[in-house]
């Protein structure tokens, strides 16, 4: 058996188990029977392979089901979700060892699927669920020390760079699906909500509990700017263009305190003298 034979065998079995498209090595009729022995207890090669195939589909569909509870609700239940998840796994089979990342391309796949690409509620739900998945195990960062914040001179703030906690995810959505996810987690069945432009932050707190909370549009715009690497002053200017100067100027101090208390602020870096 050459290395090429081993590749061929594993390629064929992977295709048959995961239902992938052949990768330039079409499975020949009867090849499984040529390679795999029947069992002493009467299982033919197809039945033996089916043990692995069943495990593959059970494992991955259960993982996706656990990872996307809001999407299941938005789609109207387990049956349409299962059909969609099956299509997803065939189109985008698992890559890499990390089962936590199994759904990383699911929101994108949903948006490209004719059956669902005009369903804004489903698309919002998928993005929210994935934000929760990402917040679960991404890197940690200690919250900024309040004494450090207090020591920064007022005139330095506009040019300071603010680093947000790595778990913080900012979502602009057409529905308040974070409320639905919360109800689902309490065992209730939410009503389908009306469309409502919604800004949400998802994050993991210091006790590793994940949360979602709504944001005012200007607060969202500032955080999005900070996340993109803008200085605080530039991020606020950007938010002012989106809402009003007055609402930003009157609220930004309180927002910043709130974000800091939630652990969203990991560092505030004054400009260096070279800047």
């Amino acid at each position, binding site marked *: 058996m050459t290395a090429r034979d081993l590749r061929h065998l594993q390629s064929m079995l992977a295709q048959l188990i995961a239902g992938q498209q052949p990768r330039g090595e079409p499975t020949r009729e009867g090849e499984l029977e040529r390679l795999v022995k029947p069992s002493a207890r009467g299982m033919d*090669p197809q039945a*033996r392979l089916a043990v692995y195939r069943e495990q593959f589909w059970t494992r*991955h569909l259960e993982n996706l089901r656990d990872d996307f509870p809001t999407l299941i609700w938005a789609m109207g239940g387990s049956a349409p979700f299962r059909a969609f998840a099956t299509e997803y796994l065939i189109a985008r089979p698992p890559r890499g060892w990390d089962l936590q990342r199994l759904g990383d391309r699911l929101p994108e796949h949903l948006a490209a699927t004719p059956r669902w690409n005009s369903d804004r509620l489903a698309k919002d739900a998928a993005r929210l669920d994935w934000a929760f998945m990402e917040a679960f195990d991404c890197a*940690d960062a200690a919250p900024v020390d309040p004494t450090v914040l207090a020591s920064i001179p007022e005139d330095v703030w506009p040019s300071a760079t603010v680093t947000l906690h790595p778990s913080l995810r900012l979502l602009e959505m057409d529905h308040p699906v974070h409320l639905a996810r919360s109800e689902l987690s309490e065992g209730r069945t939410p009503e389908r909500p009306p469309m409502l432009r919604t800004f949400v932050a998802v994050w993991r707190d210091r006790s590793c509990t994940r949360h979602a909370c709504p944001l005012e549009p200007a607060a969202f715009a500032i955080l999005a700017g900070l996340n993109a690497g803008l200085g605080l002053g530039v991020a606020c200017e950007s938010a002012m263009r989106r809402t009003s100067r007055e609402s930003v100027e009157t609220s930004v101090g309180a927002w910043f305190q709130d974000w800091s208390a939630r652990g969203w602020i990991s560092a505030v870096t004054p400009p260096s003298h070279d800047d």
Partner: protein
Amino acid sequence: MDYRARLRIPDLGVGVGFRGPHASTILRARPAMGWFEIISENFFAEGGIQPAHLESLRSTYGVVPHGVSLSIGGADPLDEGYLARLRTLVRRLDAPWFSDHLCWTGFGGVDLHDLLPMPYNRETLDHVVERVKRAQGTVGAPLALENASSYMEFRQSSLPEHSFLAEVAERADCGILLDVNNVFVSAYNHGFDARTYVDGIPPDRVVQIHLAGHEDKGPYLLDTHSDHVREEVWELYRRALRRCGAVSTLIEWDTNIPTWETLEAEAALARSVRQEVLGGDMGSRGAV
């Protein structure tokens, strides 16, 4: 000098798999347990609850990482990124060994997240030996290669699995994680004698033994880790202990996870079997 003595592989006594539903009980009450095994991949993350749990766990117990994604029998190249994460984890735990399975887990970059069997012959043996050497070299610790349970056999096999595993261990100079439940399951599925398998494993290479429950599906047994250890498997464990001596033993229970008390009782049963076979202090290690 035999393998375990040469590499100073310790006997950790009897332990159990560290699983989510028991985490708060274990970390709060610090129950008497010889050691814990973790699923390596679950602790590769940079942040979140798992690294926090691990720091707390290792402050009290010995912890050994057990992987499911090394794909030592795979035709794809070994994943260097995966090995780097494994090295970091092993160093962080100061683990005396790390373990994974004699299997392949994916092809062409697609990961099936399963432990698939390979043909056992001279060519695949050379392939696995080279990869074990590379994995051990990169990770910097001894690998204990586990016999996986399987549901398929290949016509290209020319060696029995136990001979294949024994020769890989000798040529690559690695350890063996002997899963006696997997031996029982595969023996049923493929029609070989489980006792011959256990007797064919070089005893000094065995650094760990796994025990678990399985499910009877009629024409085959499925390795589900979902129940108590069956009496026939306890009997194989006795046989393995008589051959291997005092070897770290671990109870795996991953589905239908029972109460902590039930799992503790299963570990106590393993300790009593060790005591019965080995006698004296050798048998009771891991009781406190």
